[in-house]
């Protein structure tokens, strides 16, 4: 039974929204929260909203977080709605993450990799004790500096590929599918799956990735490399006919390396799962890489037995905007639907001879 629209109730709705605005503002004696404060001081929330809203714009993400009272899914929803109002001018050249200006780069498989292990601004190795200094607004000391030895940071998988121990990236040239323009169809190709994962809910991907580690489609992963930093964005405007550099974005990339015992066509080698996300989002990038690898089960000749390996299940349920729309619509009036269900149940009970 479909949802049947209702009308009326405008005054109550207006009043509810006015109360919402007052609730959002909170105690007027407390200083109003600035968009710049959210952008600068709640950066991880901004990054997550940009990733799941699928729109890189820290200012707008900060505004959305304020408007949604910190409800990050609602904030991502606001960004998704906003992007539909804008024309798309161009697509970028594929970003070159090998040329990333590194803020963080670690490998859990090679200790002495060229370029070194760079921790960056990490929560790793903190004690997860509440820092009461933040309550009193302590000013942190300036970050330390050290000489830079320069040189590009080679990707970890490039070390192994010369021996054929790890699978290659595959062919480079193609026009990717776009799930914002074409309806999803299955089997979805890996480019479309990665687009879905990149805008997918971090919590959902975390749970799916975790499930593969616990044995539901086990793929024995190692964090081959995680890197976070800025990459330049290049576009080729039609009026110019050559690529121009329009600025930098912060991205996080994860190369997950997985055991693979080989198949009839492929010798034993390490396979890979890939994660890439807007902003500083290691948990998201790692989970994405685990799920990307899990969804390659069929391609690699593995049995598809676990939820994370089921492409249709993952891709259809990873989007929290669609999920929230369908779950939360249940709270809208369904009076007519329910009346008809009630009639049906009464009739069935009468037919079954159930007494009152």
């Amino acid at each position, binding site marked *: 039974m479909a949802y049947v629209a209702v009308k009326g109730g405008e005054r109550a709705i207006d009043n509810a929204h006015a109360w919402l605005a007052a609730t959002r503002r909170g105690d007027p004696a407390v200083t109003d929260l600035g968009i710049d404060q959210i952008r600068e001081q709640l950066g991880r929330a901004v990054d997550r909203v940009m990733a799941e809203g699928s729109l890189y714009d820290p200012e707008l993400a900060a505004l959305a977080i304020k408007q949604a009272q910190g409800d990050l899914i609602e904030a991502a929803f606001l960004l998704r709605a906003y992007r539909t109002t804008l024309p798309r001018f161009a697509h970028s050249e594929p970003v070159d993450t090998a040329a990333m200006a590194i803020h963080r780069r670690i490998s859990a498989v090679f200790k002495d990799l060229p370029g070194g292990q760079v921790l960056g601004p990490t929560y790793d190795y903190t004690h997860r004790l509440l820092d009461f200094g933040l309550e009193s607004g302590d000013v942190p000391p300036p970050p330390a500096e050290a000489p830079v030895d320069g040189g590009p940071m080679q990707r970890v998988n490039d070390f192994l590929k010369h021996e054929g121990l790890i699978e290659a*990236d595959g062919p480079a040239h193609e026009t990717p599918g776009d799930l914002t323009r074409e309806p999803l169809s299955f089997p979805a190709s890996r480019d479309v799956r990665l687009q879905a994962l990149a805008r997918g809910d971090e919590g959902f991907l975390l749970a799916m990735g975790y499930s593969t580690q616990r044995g539901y489609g086990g793929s024995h992963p190692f964090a081959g490399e995680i890197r976070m930093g800025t990459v330049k964005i290049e*576009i080729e405007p039609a009026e110019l006919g050559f690529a121009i550099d329009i600025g930098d974005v912060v991205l996080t990339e994860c190369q997950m390396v997985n055991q693979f015992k080989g198949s009839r066509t492929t010798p034993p080698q390490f396979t890979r799962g890939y994660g890439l996300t807007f902003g500083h989002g290691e948990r998201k990038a790692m989970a994405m890489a685990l799920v990307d690898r899990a969804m390659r089960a069929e391609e690699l000749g593995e049995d598809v037995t676990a939820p994370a390996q089921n492409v249709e299940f993952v891709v259809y349920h990873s989007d929290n905007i669609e999920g929230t729309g369908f779950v939360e619509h249940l709270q809208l009036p369904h009076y007519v639907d329910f009346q008809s269900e009630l009639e049906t149940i009464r009739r069935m009970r009468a037919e079954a001879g159930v007494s009152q």
Partner: protein
Amino acid sequence: MAVLARASSNDIAACLETVSPLVEPVVLRGPEQGLVMVRGRIGGGGGAFNLGEMSVTRCTVRAGAQVGHATVIGRDAALALLAARVDAALQDPGQHEALQTAVIAPLAAHQAAAKAAEAAHAAATRVEFFTLQTMRT
């Protein structure tokens, strides 16, 4: 263009105060806001995929005989307009040298310094892990 796109309109305007004023432009398009679909590569080096969109603002102006274009990340219309005007002026051989010296060079130096500072912060967090002898026998 890469330098202008990364600058703020205030910084560009401040640099422009030291050179003769730019010709009043005829705005041909914009500044208008839109999106660029950012692409990545599967595995970092394989086939392209669509990562997500980003806000951009673009502007095209004519100043004298030159047409200047700018596309900048974000929604700063003033920056897109000013960058397009400077782009037009840079194509004028009579102004190119002066603008390169007064505007592009100092902004580029400022951006390079900021990037070097970030790289230095990253370098300070570089670690050498020691592998401990395995507990398994």
